């Protein structure tokens, strides 16, 4: 703090802190806090008010019945009905006069009222995201190793370029490419029809299988595992591997005792990013299932906000997802024994 003032003076230091605090408070902390806050309340009628609105409904029913009777009634009966009608209408007026203003009630019910189906979707989302992460780690480790220890600098640069292009192309386009493959009239079906495996008039509806979302998700996020691994592996001296080899270690032993331990921070970052992107992905399920399926938890969140217009429940669902991701990060950091500073390097 003082060192900052010593170098940049009071005005600039104040400006820096102002920028930092605006970001931290107005863009990060308070919005998150408000999301959590709004997940903890809902607008409710008090029981007395709920009774009132029931009474109003019943009175309106009675009024319509009485009006129907009145239309066919004559003489004394008609007068009697008129009086009854007038009385009922007055009663409705008084009841409506104190018509309900829902009150804000703090409750955990937004969380606890999650239906069994939604809980299953939530669990499935986390399970498949973990599976995507695991698969990415297994598939990407050799790739990152080859890229980091390429035969020549030129070779390494080429591999890096080949990985960088699909990594930087827009997420939606990567998913769209898979949509073209898996579509009803897509490439896979065309091939299967040509091969005579599938009848031409009845292609397979791949997109309706949950596995399609999984396939596209692996494709969309797998490279988020490669680059953290690559970055840590490039800091490993080639001579360390050679020393291990000279001492007679098998390839397997070298990986298990030298390379993989060194790559731990890379695995940690890769796992956190891949899991977080998968569990929080809205693009893949929305595009692959054409918005019809409810396979992924983010779709349920979106629906609470933009279709059911129930922001409080939506916020509760969002907080649930956030907590799951935080828990995953904590787990990864504990099991790989790395700190946050290693993670975001």
């Amino acid at each position, binding site marked *: 703090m003082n060192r900052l003032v*010593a170098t940049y003076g009071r005005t600039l230091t104040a400006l820096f802190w102002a920028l930092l605090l605006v970001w931290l408070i107005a863009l990060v902390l308070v919005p998150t806090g408000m999301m959590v806050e709004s997940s903890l309340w809902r607008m409710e009628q008090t029981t007395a008010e709920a009774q009132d609105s029931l009474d109003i409904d019943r009175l309106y029913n009675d009024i319509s019945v009485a009006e129907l009777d009145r239309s066919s009634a004559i003489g004394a009966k008609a007068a009697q009905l008129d009086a009854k009608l007038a009385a009922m209408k007055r009663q409705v007026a008084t009841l409506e006069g104190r018509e309900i203003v829902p009150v804000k009630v703090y409750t955990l019910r937004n969380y606890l009222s999650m239906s069994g189906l939604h809980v299953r979707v939530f669990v499935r989302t986390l399970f498949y995201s973990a599976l995507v992460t695991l698969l990415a780690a297994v598939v990407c480790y050799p790739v990152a190793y080859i890229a980091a220890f390429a035969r020549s600098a030129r070779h390494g640069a080429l591999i890096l370029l080949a990985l960088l292009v699909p990594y930087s192309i827009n997420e939606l386009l990567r998913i769209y490419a898979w949509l073209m493959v898996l579509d009803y009239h897509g490439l896979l079906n065309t091939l299967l029809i040509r091969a005579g495996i599938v009848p031409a008039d009845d292609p397979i509806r791949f997109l309706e299988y949950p596995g399609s979302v999984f396939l596209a998700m692996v494709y969309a996020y797998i490279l988020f595992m490669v680059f953290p691994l690559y970055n840590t592996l490039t800091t490993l001296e080639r001579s360390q591997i050679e020393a291990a080899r000279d001492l007679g270690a098998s390839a397997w032993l070298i990986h298990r005792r030298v390379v993989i331990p060194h790559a731990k921070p890379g695995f940690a970052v890769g796992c956190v990013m891949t899991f977080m992107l998968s569990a929080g992905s809205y*693009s893949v399920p929305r595009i692959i299932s054409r918005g019809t399926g409810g396979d992924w938890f983010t779709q349920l969140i979106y629906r609470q906000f933009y279709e059911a217009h129930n922001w409080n429940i939506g916020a509760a669902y969002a907080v649930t997802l956030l907590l799951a991701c935080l828990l995953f990060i904590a787990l990864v950091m504990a099991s790989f024994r790395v700190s946050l500073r290693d993670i975001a390097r």
Partner: protein
Amino acid sequence: MLGVYLVCFLVYLFLPLALMAAAAFNSFPQPALVPWQGFTWHWFGVLAHDERLISGLWHTLIVGVGVTVVAVPMGLAAALILTRLQGRAGGLLYGLLVSPILTPGVILGISTLVFWRQFDVSGGLFVAGAAQTSFIASYCMLIIMARLQRQDRSLEEAALDLGATPWLLFRRVTLPFLAPALLSAGFVAFLQSIENYNTTVFAIGGESTLVTEIGSRLRFGLSPAVNVIGVIFLTVTVLAASLFVLLRSQRR
């Protein structure tokens, strides 16, 4: 053996993208390779006259510039403060400022949406920009911090000893030293903003950017016009990535 593995992996990565790109040149009105009805530039013309996509592109550029202009100074300020802040406070602040990167994008969109609703600002370009800034500033901060860690402080001290005012020091010593990092921070910020879908789709409300427009279009059946966008993105990406790799290998 490893080479075969790598080739298989690259085929897996590139085949779907190549198919998507190739289908942009097929006359057949559905994006496909079979039936191949002849080479055409037709879909490029269709795209050029698609007004919703064009307006989405403008929105994307507006948000992208806005986010870059705000996120880079915020990242710079935070990086300057954090490199001089040790101990627990520094660790805590660092954790908080990095947390948006580790938060799912949809959550950032939602929390920003909920926040601005308190001020009667509903979802739109502004809210989307605010939501994007929250995590893009973190990326900027990390990029700038990486360079600051290699800074030779004695240069700044010398400038102060020679009587430079803080402003002059900042403008003539600090900023020039950080220029490459600021440039890549700006580049990354702009790209991240353009590309973003998961955060934006929650915060954009009734408006649209290029990417959210593509996203909503993909729901209603495919059009070769989207493949054309794919071709354009792919070309730009290949060029930018080649440039990046070239600069990187020259620096070594």
